[in-house]
């Protein structure tokens, strides 16, 4: 922002300013909302109502249509958060800090959803709600990492320090995620309990797989939608004293 970068197009700079971002994304919101709603609706009805039963697990496998997309985005969300934090730290971009703040609770919620659905799925499949399986344990650690970033953010009273500190923590966490995953994996192979056999995800039948793909796409759209909503409300909150927000509030429309 200090120096002009002719390499980057003008819209990029507009995205970098909270005001420009808010105005640009206003027109995206309805599209995203409709796409997410349609994909989620189609995926849910297809997955729950029309996909064939699993040979071994019967109907209980259908929780996969919530569980897998949530787990996907829980992981991807951490990288979104960390990347936003890095951009905010390096280029001192206010907007990136806001995206980071918006991404943290969203990712934590998705991680919690994938943990809860996973444990509900575990009951009929493994006969227990909780197993110290490598993937479950890694997800739990991921949840703790999210909670740490959120807690650190709320502990600071100064907004800018809160953003920077949690960005540093998110980055350190990113460097650690592969290590944590590998070590949990290794730990599990060392301690693998013999009584529980994990159902290996085999090549899924297309009739089961396509609804899952639709659900994953739907979750991605939903994630983008909520992330934008969170970011936009954060923008309004932080810029509440600026002219353009006041104008918008008085004018009643953007």
């Amino acid at each position, binding site marked *: 922002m200090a120096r002009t970068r002719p390499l980057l197009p003008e819209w990029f700079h507009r995205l970098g300013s909270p005001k420009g971002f808010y105005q640009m994304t206003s027109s995206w919101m309805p599209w995203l909302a409709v796409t997410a709603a349609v994909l989620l609706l189609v995926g849910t009805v297809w997955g729950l109502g029309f996909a064939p039963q699993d040979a071994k697990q019967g109907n209980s496998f259908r929780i996969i249509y919530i569980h897998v997309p949530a787990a996907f985005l829980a992981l991807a969300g951490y990288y979104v958060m960390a990347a936003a934090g890095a951009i905010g730290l390096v280029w001192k971009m206010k907007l990136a800090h806001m995206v980071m703040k918006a991404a943290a609770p969203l990712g934590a919620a998705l991680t919690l959803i994938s943990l809860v659905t996973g444990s509900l799925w575990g009951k009929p499949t493994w006969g227990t709600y909780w197993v110290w399986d490598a993937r479950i344990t890694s997800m739990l650690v991921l949840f703790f990492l999210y909670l740490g970033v959120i*807690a650190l953010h709320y502990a600071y009273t100064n907004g800018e320090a809160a953003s920077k500190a949690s960005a540093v923590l998110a980055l350190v966490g990113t460097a*650690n995620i592969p290590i944590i995953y590998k070590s949990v994996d290794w730990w599990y192979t060392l301690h693998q309990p013999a009584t529980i056999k994990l159902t290996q995800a085999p090549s899924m039948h297309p009739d089961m797989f396509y609804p899952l793909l639709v659900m994953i796409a739907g979750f991605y759209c939903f994630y983008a939608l909520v992330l934008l909503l969170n970011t936009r409300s954060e923008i309004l909150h932080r810029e509440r004293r600026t002219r353009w927000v006041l104008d918008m509030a008085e004018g009643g429309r953007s």
Partner: protein
Amino acid sequence: MASPDAAPPELATATAFRAVLTRDLTLAFRHRGDMANPLIFFVMVATLVPLGVTPESGQLALLAPGMIWVMALLASLLSAETLFLADHRDGSLEQLALSPQPLWLLVLAKIIVHWLVTGLPLTLLSPLLGVMLSLPQAGFGPLVVSLLLGTAALSMIGAIGAALTVAIPRGGLLLSLIVMPLYMPVLIFGASAVQLAVDGISPSGALAILGALLAFSCLISPFATAGALRVSLHG
């Protein structure tokens, strides 16, 4: 301290590094009570295990490798809070940040001292806990080696959390919240090195990974800690 203007820059940096090292060591040895606290905690928790679980030595031997490691981790975590706290209160942290020498180097000196006064004593004390929890004979060597490497890595990682929370009132609990997930790989490989040795398998692989974790944390931690300190100091 030597005046940085007169000396060539490398010399001044080395002098500053040594000055921080000796200052922190002196401070630590003048507050020997603080130094003893993590050790007392370590031994006391070791007493809780037989009281809470069982005094039967066969079962204790099963638990010992993991328990000793968990306790060492908690003791190191408790002591991490004090890493920058006193310096932040009396303003000397601000002075360090303002000095012409790179902050990460001075931070590295502080972390090394922190390890010397907490991690190293914990390591030296650990055979005693091994005896208390009837750790099998084969586990003692790997326990000491793994704690030697592991507590150093824990000090490195804990420093990042300490730097992030130093400006927050009552940040101790928050520190444990943000640091514990990062501690997990160290715990996994540290405890399994001991467990492998007890089971009669060579622990060298786990120890090598522990060394790699230490090397990696040495690479990242001083810079992350210095960055976090600047955030804590200036907002």
